[in-house]
């Protein structure tokens, strides 16, 4: 309960800060919207040339892409701590975080919140509706809950992987280029998994399970029965990977060396 109220306190602070810079807010909102619109057109144009990919139709691929954008947007809004090393370790902000009576990871997530990322989810949903209507998909009332569950699962998979990567900074303070590389790998999750060879498929399922952010959960909504097992593993994988990340984080905090003054 306490954590929920702290969360809303931070969120209202965040909104206040954003509202303070009125022009900034408008410019940012507008440019985010433009970015999403360009993104949307780009996706339709690119996928316009593909017809069938290993048994997946063009619209199914577009649907997967649309789904992927939703957990990715939620991840971007709350767990995007790519600058953790520089900001908190090198500049020593971690010292401050550790002197406050709230879990350190929770504090950092709240401080690095970027709610404008959530706009991406709207793009994602528009894409899904577009592709879904062309595919004549049937939706049940409970699908909305399954959708939320899968989005949360996918978000936690993403968050787990990136938080785990951020904890590397506790052991080595050298800057690494692993983060941008991981963003690239993350993109592979939004294409049908069976177009890849076995090794890559295995990696994207069990080691860096980005497939659980895009293909697997989408397969449920697309009615691909052979993938249902994987689809319902999504929230489980999310929880497992997020728990691993929290465990690594706690171990890392014990190793924290602090920055010199």
């Amino acid at each position: 309960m306490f954590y929920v109220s702290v969360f809303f306190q931070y969120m209202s602070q965040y909104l206040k800060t954003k509202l303070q810079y009125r022009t900034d807010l408008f410019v940012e909102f507008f440019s985010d919207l433009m970015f999403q619109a360009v993104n949307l057109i780009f996706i339709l144009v690119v996928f316009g040339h593909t017809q069938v990919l290993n048994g997946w139709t063009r619209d199914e691929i577009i649907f997967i892409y649309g789904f992927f954008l939703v957990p990715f947007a939620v991840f971007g809004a709350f767990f995007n701590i790519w600058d953790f090393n520089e900001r908190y370790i090198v500049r020593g902000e971690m010292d401050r975080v550790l002197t406050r009576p709230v879990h350190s990871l929770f504090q950092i997530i709240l401080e690095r919140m970027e709610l404008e990322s959530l706009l991406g989810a709207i793009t994602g949903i528009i894409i899904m509706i577009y592709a879904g209507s062309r595919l004549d998909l049937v939706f049940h009332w409970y699908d909305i809950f399954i959708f939320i569950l899968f989005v949360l699962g996918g978000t936690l998979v993403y968050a787990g992987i990136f938080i785990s990567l951020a904890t590397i900074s506790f052991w080595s303070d050298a800057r690494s280029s692993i983060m941008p590389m991981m963003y690239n790998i993350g993109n592979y999750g939004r294409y049908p998994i069976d177009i890849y060879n076995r090794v890559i498929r295995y990696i994207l399922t069990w080691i860096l399970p980005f497939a659980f952010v895009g293909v697997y959960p989408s397969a449920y909504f697309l009615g691909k029965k052979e993938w249902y097992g994987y689809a319902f593993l999504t929230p489980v994988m999310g929880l497992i990977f997020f728990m691993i990340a929290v465990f690594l984080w706690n171990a890392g905090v014990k190793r924290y060396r602090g920055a010199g003054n």
Partner: protein
Amino acid sequence: MANAIEVEKLRKEFKSYSSRSGLIGAFRDLFTRNYKIIRAVNDISFTVKQGEMVGYIGENGAGKSTTIKMLTGILTPTSGKVIVNGMNPHKEREKFVQTIGVVFGQRSQLWWDIAVQESFRLLKKVYRVSDQAYKEHMEHVIETLDIGPLLDKPVRKLSLGQRMRCELAAALIHNPPLLFLDEPTIGLDVLVKLKIRKFLKEINEKYNTTILLTTHDISDIEALCERVIMLDEGKIIYDGSLQELKANWGEGKQIQFQFAKEVAQEELNVLTADLKVQWQAGERENVWTAHVSPTDMSDVIGRVVAKYEIKDININEISTEEIIRNIYEEGVVYG
């Protein structure tokens, strides 16, 4: 009275590697590294009673910050025992930090973009302070530190002195029984310094707050602390009252003579051969300083004045700063 801080054989080691020189060295570093273990804090022990104000001093790199970071639960000690407010700081971190306040002079605790009062409100939530407790306690703090007019300004628009006062108020929102101040007056002007010192004294008297203070400004310590702990190369070299330190080291006076004509050191030595005097050449021409014990003072002045023509005389007490510098130069505390 209970002890606020108990430290026994506390040690912190850092592993750092020294890189070899040159390109070939860099390649060798890739495979085998020369690790060196640096002991930043070396088996120190001390206790601080509730309500004490202790000055923790040392040169840069002596281990002050490392100790404070272990006491506040930021760093995990390599070995040794730390009990602060009856808890183990890094084990029960979240519960523990509720009972301490921390100010790092060189790092802001406040949010840069939002108004000071918004930062306070956020901290109030984080520390679970009730509205009533906040009102009772913070109204007084805000008034004493004179930050009322600053509350609706964002932190980035404040001057250093204004910011420091707000930082101090922020650290006290939950009225902690123990306050850690790491160089709270660094870079501040005299007026702000005085205000902060007065405030610290006040909360110490009012709430019996324990204060551990590190600083490079000895006048802070003179104004606030009865007790000093002096650190050098990770070890405690002095722990006791400031008075005693001064009495053992600061005995004696310095008399500075400005002579009208050139004088040789031998002449002066011969003149005061039977007294306990050390002559030292001053920075300007024909200026000599005599370090004497108080009993010989009048003798020295009498003899010098009788023999030479004097332009000016100054009598100084040895300052605390000088005492501490002397101690660091010799590395040991006598007495």
